[in-house]
């Protein structure tokens, strides 16, 4: 499990952030004192740092700069200052990403995931999602079944991926669309239906049948086990 260090001086936000990240599959660690933040970050053994800009003792941008001199640990800056210039300064100091308060929790999550994915690229073997008899190849954006492969478009892939991550549970149309929109695919209701139909026929062409079920007026479920 990936560990995230939260460097945030507001107790309440720290608590909620930790709670939120824990519930989304991360382990968290919080910084309690701010007298030696640079050393603490360097020795925390975490995979990513969420760094607030406004901190009591030392400025977040300074911390970022100092940490970067000695380590490549991914840093996401969190700030309430909102201007391109601030963003530029942070990025120049070596931050990997930059989110503004008030951030959307899901977007923060997506950014964390994106950075971790980027960082771990090459280190881990390409991820394969096992879907009960057939597989999804994350790196190649392909569905695979008994030696047969089919390529999916970006839209199709995102839909299948999101459903597969929550297989066996109902995914509402709104939740699915919301996820797609976060990935900058602004599909509407009809497009979604069309895409799902296309996915079904693509999957069928390599022998995967009836894996995506429609619940009328609610959403879709990806079957946990392939039922013939």
């Amino acid at each position, binding site marked *: 499990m990936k560990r995230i260090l939260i460097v945030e001086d507001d107790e309440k*936000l720290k608590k909620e952030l930790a709670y939120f990240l824990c*519930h989304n599959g991360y382990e968290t660690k919080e910084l309690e004192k701010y007298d030696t933040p640079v050393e603490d970050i360097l020795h925390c053994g975490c995979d990513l740092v969420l760094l607030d800009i406004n901190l009591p003792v030392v400025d977040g941008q300074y911390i970022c700069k100092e940490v970067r001199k000695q380590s490549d640990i991914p840093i996401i800056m969190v700030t309430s200052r909102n201007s391109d*210039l601030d963003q530029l300064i942070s990025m120049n100091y070596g931050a990997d990403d930059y989110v503004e*308060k008030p951030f959307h929790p899901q977007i923060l999550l997506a950014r964390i995931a994106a950075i971790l994915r980027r960082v771990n690229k090459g280190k881990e073997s390409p991820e394969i999602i096992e879907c009960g008899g057939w597989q999804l190849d994350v790196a190649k954006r392909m569905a695979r079944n008994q030696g047969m492969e089919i390529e999916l478009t970006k839209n199709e892939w995102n839909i299948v991926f999101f459903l597969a991550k929550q297989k066996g549970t109902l995914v509402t149309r*709104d939740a699915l669309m919301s996820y797609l929109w976060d990935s900058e695919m602004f599909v509407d209701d009809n497009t979604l239906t069309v895409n799902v139909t296309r996915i079904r026929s693509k999957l069928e062409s390599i022998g995967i049948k009836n894996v995506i079920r429609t619940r009328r007026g609610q959403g879709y479920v990806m079957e946990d086990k392939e039922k013939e």
Partner: protein
Amino acid sequence: MKWKDFLRDRLASLLLWGIFIIALEVMLMAVSQPFLQIYIGVGIPLGFLVDLCLEFHKKKKFYDRIEKQAEEMEQAYLLPEVMEDADFLEGNYLIQFLKVMEHSMAEEVKRYRKDHEEYKDYIEMWIHEVKHPIAVGKMIAENHRSEAMESMEEELQKIEDYTEQALYYARSYNVEKDYLIKEVPLQNVVAEVLKKNKKTLITEKIKIEMENLETTVYTDNKWMEFVVNQVVGNSIKYRSETPYILFSAVRKKEQVIFSVKDNGIGISESEIKRVFEKGFTGSNGRGKQKSTGIGLYLCQKLCRRLGHNILLFSREGEGTEVRIIFPVGSYYNER
């Protein structure tokens, strides 16, 4: 300064002298004194004329210089600072008083400017402060999902939007430059705005279409996002039964035209000219949807500061189109 005006100003004194000399002449004619007659009839008017010429020349020099300076100066109220001494008494008095006046006004302006700066700084600081509790609130809503929290989140979003508006309002008055112009694909701007509004856009089933948005423009990302967000906010607010929003861009020789078009309820012809006015809320805005009359006003103001142009076309019952025009300078093309 013109001769005509100068003479008209001296009319009373000229007439008086004229009458006096003619009277003298008549009297002298009675006592037949030809020598005195010539002296008074020619010499005195001549001397008078020379004096008049000298005075006119002096004053003309003085006032013409001021006039020229006033035209050349950007801040005409600083005129007394650059005025040179006059070579006649009243001119110097004038300069003296003007200087006193100018000083007191400069003080006053300075005081207001300082107050304004401080207030603006306070507003900016306050906005950054208030964003923090909003962030915490959103986090709490996310962590404890329920119907009440969803609704709370919507309200938090509204607070955030209003806060954003206040921030840009404060910034739009700023004299110094706090934006950063760079090459931005319109796609990025639109995507951010859509993500921000995705909740309403999805639940209200608003269809989104995009054309040619790979086009890049030179602008400040954040400011543009704010402007487009206001426009999209209006499209959402005043939507029709089967709403759609079309984002498109056209690159012309000298400009890029970015258009946001909807099929909403539109704006009546009588009101269309006033939509960019500060505080103007048309009949739409006074209806069931609340409007502050600030959104489009700010859009125009920010666009002007960035050197873009913003136009609005609308037909009642058919929809509204907002066009933002980005000039394309040859400087950028040559790179």
